[in-house]
């Protein structure tokens, strides 16, 4: 128990924000696993205020100003209530009585802690070095909110209330199943505004908590599936860019997370150039040992790169992570080999996961690249043209490939690759469909040339028929 106060005193005296944050953390440190338990046993509701006051104000090893001590008093009072609730909930959970674990009240009491900390900051009582405390409150608020919502959903399911529910306007209303998380989002938003509006000079400013809070908000909004709200955050950050230190000045962890989320938001908006920037930078800044993070970044980086640079990831890259390997390898091999059948199969196999991550629609564009590869193969297979008269003197003639390709050949290649859509149902091939595919490739600048319909051939440009592939 005293370890807590020792830490507190040390932290206050050495201005160690992170150490201070551990004193109000819901997770006891490894060195003192029974900390919360001891804390809740140390005093009781009747005398909590006096005990705390003794520890904070009259404690010789802690030198706090009266106002600050008062603020900490409030924080620890709320923390005391919180530990009681948390321990009760945890006990219920370990005893297997999940239904009785009241995470909802845990959430509410933690919210109280947050409010007291918030008051400490808004009254300018706490100094800026203590902002890791904000990190702690925000982070756990989110976690408890998720737990409380899960429990609420489970209990609703059990009692069959899920169908009864609340009804408002027209027949059905949106589920309130994320109630706590939405509330948490609001609270964290308050903290964000608090940090943003700090007018103190930079060394002593709360603005250093900005990106961490922004990241928390992103995580929450993504979970709530309300991406547009994240755009508001980005906008406010951009608006105050002149006052805040640049992103590179913030801790690397904040940077990587922020870039990741900005990249994903840009990706979902179909702004692939911007997404590529963010995600690449996140990927490069990210520590290689944080494999899960790397995996998450790559998950979005690969489709982005596919679209912008038409580049596929190497085998080596994909093998870094089993999930990536499973999801993307078949696709990449199929595209390289221009195997339409395999591509469709791979896309379908991973469909659920792709759709969940919202990358399915982007991966479909991979089909365009596949078709381009296919046409290129046909082109290559066409061989070389016989050198014209008068050329090739001196033996330095560049062999020119045949540029006139009958549509029939392309159709045959498509059949071989397993394209079923070009069949017209009678065992033949729908030539118009093939022409359409070629026309699209030309339109999208995957090929340069034109279709001469009356002669049934595709004429490709002599130089650079397939831009970007060196042909």
């Amino acid at each position: 128990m005293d370890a807590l106060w020792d830490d507190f005193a040390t932290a206050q005296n050495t201005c160690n924000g992170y150490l201070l944050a551990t004193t109000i953390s819901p997770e006891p440190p490894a060195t003192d696993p029974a900390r919360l338990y001891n804390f809740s046993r140390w005093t009781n509701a009747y005398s909590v205020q006096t005990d705390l006051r003794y520890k904070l104000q009259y404690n010789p090893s802690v030198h706090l100003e009266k106002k600050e001590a008062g603020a900490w008093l409030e924080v620890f009072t709320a923390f005391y209530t919180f530990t009681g609730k948390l321990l009760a909930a945890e006990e219920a959970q370990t005893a297997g009585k999940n239904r009785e674990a009241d995470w909802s009240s845990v959430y509410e009491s933690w919210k109280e802690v947050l409010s007291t900390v918030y008051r400490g900051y808004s009254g300018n009582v706490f100094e800026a070095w203590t902002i890791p405390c904000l990190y702690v409150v925000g982070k756990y608020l989110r976690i408890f909110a998720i737990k409380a919502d899960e429990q609420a959903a489970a209990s609703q399911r059990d009692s069959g209330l899920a169908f009864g529910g609340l009804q408002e306007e027209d027949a059905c209303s949106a589920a309130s199943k994320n109630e706590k998380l939405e509330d948490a989002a609001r609270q964290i938003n308050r903290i964000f505004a608090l940090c943003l509006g700090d007018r103190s000079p930079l060394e002593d400013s709360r603005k250093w908590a900005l990106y961490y809070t922004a990241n928390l908000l992103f995580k929450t909004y993504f979970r709530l599936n309300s991406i547009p709200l994240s755009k508001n955050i980005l906008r406010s950050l951009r608006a105050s860019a002149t006052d805040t230190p640049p992103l590179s000045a913030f801790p690397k962890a904040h940077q990587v997370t922020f870039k990741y989320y900005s990249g994903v938001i840009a990706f979902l908006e179909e702004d692939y150039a911007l997404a590529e920037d963010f995600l690449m930078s996140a990927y490069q800044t990210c520590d290689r040992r944080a494999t899960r993070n790397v995996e998450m970044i790559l998950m979005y980086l690969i489709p982005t790169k596919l679209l912008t640079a038409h580049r596929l990831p190497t085998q080596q890259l994909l093998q870094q992570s089993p999930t990536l390997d499973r999801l993307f390898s078949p696709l990449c091999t199929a595209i390289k080999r221009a195997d339409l059948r395999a591509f469709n199969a791979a896309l379908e196999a991973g469909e659920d996961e792709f759709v969940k991550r919202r990358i399915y629609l982007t991966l479909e564009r991979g089909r365009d690249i596949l078709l381009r590869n296919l046409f290129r193969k046909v082109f290559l297979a066409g061989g070389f043209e016989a050198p014209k008269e008068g050329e090739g003197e001196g033996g330095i003639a560049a062999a020119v490939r045949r540029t006139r390709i009958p549509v029939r050949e392309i159709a045959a290649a498509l059949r071989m690759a397993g394209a079923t859509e070009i069949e017209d149902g009678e065992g033949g091939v729908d030539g118009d469909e093939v022409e359409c595919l070629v026309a699209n490739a030309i339109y999208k600048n995957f090929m340069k040339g034109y279709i001469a319909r009356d002669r049934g051939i595709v004429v490709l440009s002599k130089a650079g028929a397939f831009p970007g592939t060196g042909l």
Partner: protein
Amino acid sequence: MGVDLAEMQHKLKVVITQAAEAGQLESIDWTTYPLPQHLVQAERDAMALPGGAQNAHSANLNASTSYLSNGAYLPERIHKRKNEDLEVTATEEDAVTPSWKKHNTNKGSMEDRMTGKSKKHDKKQKKQDAFRANGLGTNADVLEKRKQRFGYTIEKSYFRLTAPPAPDTVRPLPVLEKSLNHIRGKWKNEHNYNYACDQLKSMRQDLTVQHIQNELTVKVYESHARIALEMKDLGEYNQCQTQLRALYKLNITGKSEEFTAYRILYTVYTCNRTDMNNLLADLTLADKQKPAVQHALQVRSALASRNYHKFFRLYLDAPFMGAYLLDMIIQRERIAAMAAICKAYKPDVSLCFIAQELAFFGDVDAPDPDAGLRQ
């Protein structure tokens, strides 16, 4: 003895107040209604009869019982009215025979009353009723008024609610079912969109305030959605679609295959990426087996890869009412297809080819060939 001005005016006031309370001000045919002085005269005549007051009392008893038995007839009357294809509402019809006359319905048909066979008897009833209304406010009278307002109306206009609705204006479930059939019939015959829309919205309102969520609710929304689609009212259609999705999630049976297909096509039309992502995430394996949904998904993928050829083939055989939605997409897709064709084909292409590729028929105007070229 003549009726003097004061009495006539008093009587006039009474009649009008009663009509207003019963909500019959618009529906009573005032031109044929007896004049106030006649009414007063009739009263006096009746009063002059021996035992007039007694008559009043016994008629009162009769009236109560006859009303109650009358109440049981009411649904049948509505039913018959529909079959006879009359377009009057319950209130309108009642207005032709003023409320108190109903007490006699079990004795004679409407026609009898109108031809005045028992006019004297009617007048006596009227007098008695007026007598009662002036003083006692009986059960029969109140019940009578309530019957008209209590939502036995099949047709009801839509008014936006600004406060909780009056319970007597909300129609109960059986009436709503009849209402739906009635409106459907009228739509088939007349194709009056404003009217149908109005009626359906009021039905939706009645269902919502009563928290009714069953097959009837689904049918109402489906009908409204189809009608809106036909008339290209996408705002209304979108509302219905959203509600239908929520209702299907509650496992209420309805044409979920058809409407899931419409939803996909609608999302394609609005080019709403987020919605499309969410929609695809929601589709179950069972959904994807259904032909209409498969067709819609194929449309989506054809458009995603700009495969105009396939898209126009799919346009030609769209199931259910999907063609209406595709009609709205087709304009911009034709231009996009033209752009690709103009870029890819040289030196020229036959008009016939374009007409066929872009699914034009007959003498429909082909788009300006140069429109796509400059893209």
